[in-house]
Every structure is written in structure tokens, then in C-alpha cells.
């Protein structure tokens, strides 16, 4: 064993400064609980943006309501902190208004799958070129620990004192069936893997959905803890073919072992491309119509 080299704080700070990562971070101090998975996600997003050299002013982070609400405030990019459940349609509006922007929607399981659940299929099927980072801790953290749509059956919370009787949703399976063109799963406890997947998600041209498993260190001491998740998560099989939707769905359907990695990716027309095509068609429509009329007229005398 080679003894580890000591790391000096000053050197590390220099390294961080030179990396350019700090440009993406605001000076506001995060309000999350110590140990919260959102720190990993912030770090992962900052790393990915840094690596991809995306300008801060060309980046827009859109959040809804929940523990992710304040995510934009901790980034030094454009941000829009919107309403509970509405991050996706607002992000869609931003992207439609300006295709040049890199738009990232962030939110939790309650924001995304409870109140905002109706918007996800439509963002997915339109293939709007944004990235949706969904932070799933199976609980309503900001309102202090109520049951959520991804809470396990049997979970006891202030609003399910006699155990949660509802079955949890399977977000990955939903997204795959909604036609999301990029679906992956990461874990807050694997920050480097998370960071890589965020980068891939940002690079994907189309709607990319990254499901991030994370503990709520404050309100869930029993179910989705770091200890439990550390033991449970696995990487997808090395042989998993991310162009095989059926394989991706099989993996997603296996809820006994949360597997991490890129489930599925396909290249298809994005909303922006579709709107450009419509514009081109509309501009050419007159020509097409006239051409056919002429054709018909020429035929008429015979």
C-alpha cells in the first residue's frame, strides 16, 4: 500500500479556482440539511457544466417547490424558482423561447410525481430538449416528512400514522413508457457516478430524465438511509443495451434492487427541431399549394 499523499487546503482551493467550477456557484449558503443528497446533485451539476464549458448566462435552472426550490439560488446561473409542480412547463416555455439556452429542471418526487405528475408525459413525448433532475427521497422534506408518491408501502409519517397503504410509483418505468428519449438513474451516495450521468443527460439532445435516489437524512431514519441504499444499489449490467427499450423496462421493473446507470437513450426529433420544421413548412406552404394547383390545371384539358 502506498501511503496517501497529504492534501493541503490551499492547494485544493487553488485547484478548484482554476477549474472554473466556482463560476457556477453563488455566494449564497445552501439551506439544506447537512448530509442532504442535494449537495451531491449541486456538485454534480456544477462539475458537468464546467466540463461542458456551458456559459453561466446561457444556463437556466428551473425549480418548483420542495427542498429543490432553492437550488437555483445556490447556482450563479439564471434561475427561475416557480410553483409547486410547474417546473417542467415553465422550463418548456424557457426553452421554446430560446433554444440556445441550456435548461435544467430540478425537483423532488412530490413536486414531480404528485402535483406535477401530469406534465411529465408531455415533456417526455414532446422531447423538449431540457434535462430533468428528479431527486427522489420518498418523502415531503420541506413540509417536514409527509408521505410521498414514491414512499414505500408501510411507511409511517405524520400524515400516514397507521402506515402508508398506497403502492409507490415506479418513476423509471413511467418515464420509459412516456417515451422519454433519455432515462437514467443515479444515487446521491455515488457523487462521481452522479456527476457523469448529469453530464450525459445535459449532452443528450432531447428530454433527459435523471432519477436521483437520495436519503432524507432528517425525516427518514428507517427506510431510504445511506446505509440501506449503499447496500441495495447496483450498477446496470455491463452488457445492458441502452437502445433496447424492453431491456430498460425489465431493469426498471425490478424494484428489489435499484440499479444505477443509463437505462435508455434514443435520438429523435426534439420540440425545437419540430417547431423549426413547422416554420419551414409554413414558409413553404404557399409554394407547395401552388405547385399542386398548377399540376392539376395542366391535366384538366386532357
Amino acid at each position: 500500500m502506498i501511503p496517501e499523499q497529504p492534501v493541503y487546503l490551499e492547494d485544493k482551493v487553488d485547484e478548484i479556482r482554476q477549474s472554473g467550477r466556482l463560476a457556477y456557484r453563488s455566494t449564497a449558503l445552501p439551506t439544506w440539511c447537512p448530509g442532504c443528497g442535494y449537495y451531491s446533485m449541486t456538485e454534480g451539476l456544477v462539475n458537468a457544466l464546467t466540463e461542458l464549458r456551458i456559459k453561466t448566462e446561457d444556463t437556466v435552472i428551473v425549480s418548483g417547490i420542495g427542498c429543490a426550490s432553492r437550488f437555483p439560488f445556490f447556482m450563479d446561473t439564471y434561475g427561475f424558482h416557480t410553483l409547486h409542480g410547474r417546473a417542467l412547463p415553465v422550463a418548456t416555455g424557457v426553452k421554446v423561447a430560446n433554444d440556445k439556452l441550456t435548461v435544467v429542471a430540478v425537483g423532488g418526487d412530490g413536486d414531480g410525481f404528485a402535483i406535477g405528475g401530469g406534465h411529465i408525459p408531455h415533456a417526455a413525448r414532446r422531447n423538449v430538449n431540457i434535462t430533468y433532475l428528479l431527486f427522489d427521497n420518498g418523502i415531503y422534506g420541506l413540509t417536514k416528512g409527509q408521505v410521498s408518491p414514491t414512499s414505500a408501502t408501510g411507511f409511517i409519517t405524520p400524515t400516514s400514522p397507521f402506515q402508508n397503504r398506497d403502492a409507490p410509483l415506479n418513476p423509471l418505468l413511467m418515464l420509459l413508457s412516456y417515451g422519454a428519449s433519455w432515462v437514467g438513474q443515479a444515487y446521491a451516495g455515488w457523487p462521481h457516478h452522479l456527476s457523469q450521468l448529469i453530464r450525459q443527460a445535459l449532452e443528450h439532445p432531447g428530454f433527459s430524465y435523471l432519477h436521483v435516489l437520495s436519503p432524507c437524512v432528517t425525516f427518514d431514519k428507517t427506510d431510504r438511509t445511506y446505509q440501506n441504499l449503499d447496500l441495495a444499489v447496483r450498477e446496470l449490467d455491463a452488457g445492458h443495451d441502452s437502445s433496447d427499450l424492453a431491456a430498460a423496462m425489465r431493469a426498471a421493473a425490478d424494484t428489489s434492487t435499484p440499479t444505477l446507470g443509463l437505462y435508455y437513450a434514443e435520438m429523435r426529433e426534439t420540440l425545437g427541431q419540430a417547431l423549426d420544421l413547422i416554420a419551414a413548412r409554413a414558409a413553404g406552404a404557399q409554394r407547395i399549394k401552388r405547385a399542386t394547383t398548377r399540376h392539376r390545371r395542366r391535366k384538366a384539358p386532357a
Partner: protein
Amino acid sequence: MAKQTDIQISICGSAGDGTIAVGDIFKRAMARAGYRVIAFDHYPAEIRGFGKCISRTRISNNQVYSMKSYSDVLVSLNDLHAIPHVGEVRDYGAIIYDSAPMSAVAEGAHISGHLMPGHLPYALPIRELSELATGANRSRNIVALGFIAGLYQLPQQAFHQAIAAKFEAKAPAVADTALAAFDSGFKSGSSTYKFDDVQVGRPRARKNGGEVRMMTGNGAIAHGCLEAGIETFFGYPITPATGIMERLAVEMPRRGGRLVQTEDEIAAISATIGAGYAGARAATATSGPGLALMAEMLGLGVMAEVPAVVFVSQRGGPSTGMPTKTEQSDLNLAVWGGHGDAGRIVLAPTNVEGCRRCAARAFEMAEKFQVPVIVLIDLYLSNRYETVFLQGEDNFLPKNWQRVGSSAPGDNYRRYELTADGLSPRCVPGEAGGIHTATGLEHDEYGRPNDNPDVHSLMSEKRHEKLRDAMKYRGINFTKRFGDKGKIDVGLLAWGSTFGEALEAVLLAREEGIRCAAMKVVMISPLPSRPILRFCNDCQQVLVPELNYTGQFANLVSGELGRPVVRVNHATGAPMDINYLLTAIRNAAKKKLRSKTTTSNPTKA
């Protein structure tokens, strides 16, 4: 002296008779000929079947503001549908009907048995003429149109052009058939002795050219959007606003604009706010039910100071109510809808031209005042046609409103800087130095969450203070008085589509010698209290006519001015009844006389 023209023609038939189509040709031809046209069609609520259709068109030399309470001419293409409408024709007006129906009718089922003594009958073998002219009975509607044109000596050329334009996209034989049917009716009309006293004079020549277009309120809104350079539109279909999206879906892409049909109204307003935040000229359109869903997101627009335009066409409520009937019962929702003190701008145009102007100006106002602007109309205005005179180049394109305030983009950029007029420098994503996070949380000048009492107090003031300036905006007449000047007996304070009927009623009341005037109020929020109060102070009695049960505008005005007004509510689903309004004016004028005598009595005693 040139004959004055002001006639209203109703064509009534069933859905299969081409009633609306022929009404459409009629109004376009009359607009082409240079008349002013205003028209409102009645469709069956059901999609299928042979429900009743009525096309009503008023043509005139001078600007008119509503349909008339009666028609001068009624054409029946289907007697069973038309018989109940015989009574809307005035004495010495005309009723034109088919004298040779295809099959035998039951006793009482022919319209000739239902004419009132004052009506003049024109029994025309419509079906036979159609068959003679075209070999088929399908052109009955056009034969009847030709008869009207011939009887009243309307310019044949304008009809020929309108018919050709109508069938332009179809095979040439279709237009030829229609022209043959028209000419046959025209010939018959020209050789028919005119007993009625319906007069059509020559159209008035217009001074400064410009293009004449027939537009519905919805069409005019779409037109205004395009003139204002709309970039994005997000919408969800809902009667009666859908026409706006349908028109824009055709026109926006041609100009590089982007339109997305969203999954619901919440997504529509969310994306609109998102696009507005990102710097695009963005709009959505809906009706009351959709507006109710949008209320929360509008609050975010107010809080985050995001420009957005929301077109709302009201229909009968509450709940699903009467989707194909008109009402003005979403004023409360438009002005107050949502939680918190969320002041916004609400504009209510009163006619089709106003729809165009308000639509175009709404974008400018939204950007200048950094707030959602609601343009509130109703089904009656959405669907009615009027001639709109487009003049010169449009001046509705965006101006650079972003650069207000002193805080320049840079290190110390403050998106929500407190300024004298409440307007802060606005930067949009993509601009370096303007980075900020917009939020629905109460925030400081930088946009950082802050619930300090002073901050909330100052920011609340800022958000409302800037709207005060909106009343000084010069692109639209927010109020305008018509009728008698100075002190008057009765004043009508009207908004939206009802203003047209209000003004018609005032003009009739003035003929009866009642001193009265009507004021239209186009800006509903913030309410331009000063001119309204000045008007009310001139009136012995102020009537507020509205198409709702509770008097939503009356409540708003009397609350704001602290002055009582008389409510004239009409909640039937139909436009305001001019005669009903006229009666209200007469009663108010009488009451005024009575109060004069009662006050003078004590002095005598």
C-alpha cells in the same frame, strides 16, 4: 341627400343549408363594397345534426357599435327554424322565403302563415331557381343571397368577387355554380317590386385608403398578436377562445413564431410565463375555466415581474356553464383571481378593432410594466365579425423596454431595484451580467429570498406603484365618453362587448329627449378612477349594464369610487338587450324627475 344605410339582415336555416357560409359571403361582399359591417352568427351547440343556424349582419355607413335589437330583413332557408324569429323583423321590414318547398308541409309549418301584419312577404321559388340555375337544389342559400342583392340594388360586382374568393381553393366549377345561382337570384330580386321600406344607400368613400378586413374578435386578437411580433404562444383548446390559437397556429410559424398546444391550461400559462421570463413575446388564450386554473401562475408572474399576455374570452358560468353562450362573469377572476395582493393589468376591448389594438398593445404594456396583462373579452366579441380598417404600417412592434432603471447589468445588477416608478431593469437569460433568479418568494432587490417586513412592504408597494403608471400609458384610450356632454340625467358606464349595446341605447334615449351619455371603460385593472369619477359626477344616475348576475363591474366601480351605481344585469347567455337597457334608462330618467319633484315639494310647503 345620400341615403343613410343601417340595415340588419338575418339569414336563418339549418346546419345543412349553408346559412353561415352565405352570411359569410354577404358580409365580405358588403365590406368589399365599402360598408361597415358587424355580424354575429348563431350556431347550434351540438357538433352534429341539423341544428339552427342564424347569420345576422348589420351594414351601415357610419361606425356602429352593436347589433340592432331588431332585423330589417329575414331570410328563411328553413321555415321551422325561422318561424320563431319572425318576430325579430320590424314593421315594414322584409321576410324572404321559399314559396315552393320540396315536399308538402303540415298546416302551420310554412312561414307564410306566421308573418306579422307589418311584414312584407317575398315568396320566392328558391329551390326551383337553384335547380334551374345549377341543376341542383344545393345553391338555395346563394339564390337567396342574390335575391337580396337584386332587391336592394347592392353592388353585384362585390358579390361576384366575394363568391370567387370564397371558393378560390375549390375547383373552378364550384365558383361558377355559385355565380350562376347568385345571378339567378339577383335577376329575380331586381325585377321584384320592393314594398318594404328597407333602404340601402351608397357606401361612404373613405378618406385615407387602408385595407378593409372582416375579422372576428378572435381573429383581431390573433392579428394584433402578429402585428406585435408575438414569438411564442402556448394554449389549450377551450370554447370560445380556441379560434385565437387556431389562427395563430397558421400564421405564427410563417413568421418564425412558435406555438405549442399544451397538456392543460396550467401548462399553457406556465410555459407562457417561462417564455416571458426568457425574453420572448409570449401569450396564451383561454376562457373562464382555464383562467381559474391559471390563477396561481399569474400570481407568480406578478411576483417575479414577468411579462405575459393572457387572452380570456368569457362564456356562461359558473363551472362548465354555457360554453356556447356569452357572459361577462369572469371580471372578478381576471382582476382578483389568485392569492395574495397580485395586481395585474386587465384590458377589456369593446369592439373588434379594440381587440386588435388591445392585443397588440398588451405585449408592450406587459413588457413595459413587467406584469401579466389579461385581455378580457367574451364569446359575443370573440365570434362577431366587424370590418376593421388597417392603416399604414403597424407600430406595435417591440420597443426596448428592458433598459429601464439605473442598475446596469454587471456585478451589482439588481433585477428588482427599487426605483421611483417601481420599474426595474430587466435582463433575460443569455445576457451576461444580468444573472439572477426570479422567484415566487418575496425577495430583495437582487431577487434573493427575503421575508423581512420592510422588504415585503417596499416590494408590495413597488409592484402596485408601477401599475399606477400604466394608467398613463398612451397607446390605448382607457376610457372614452360618448353622447351628451356636461351634466346629464343618465350615464351608462359600460365595459367589454356590452358597451356597444349601451351606446346604441343611449343614442335611442337621446332621440327621446333624455340627456344621457355612455362611457366605455377599457382598462379594468388598475381602474382609471379619475375619469370615471368625473363622468359619474356629471350624471344624476349611473347605470352599469353587464352580462352577469351579480354586477361584477358595478361592484368594482362602486367599491373603488365609493359611489352608488345602478346595476342593470342581464344574465341570459345572449348579448345585452337594447330595449331592456332603454327601459332602464327611461326609468332612471323618470326617477330623476320624481326626485326633483319630491325635493321641490318641501320648499313649497
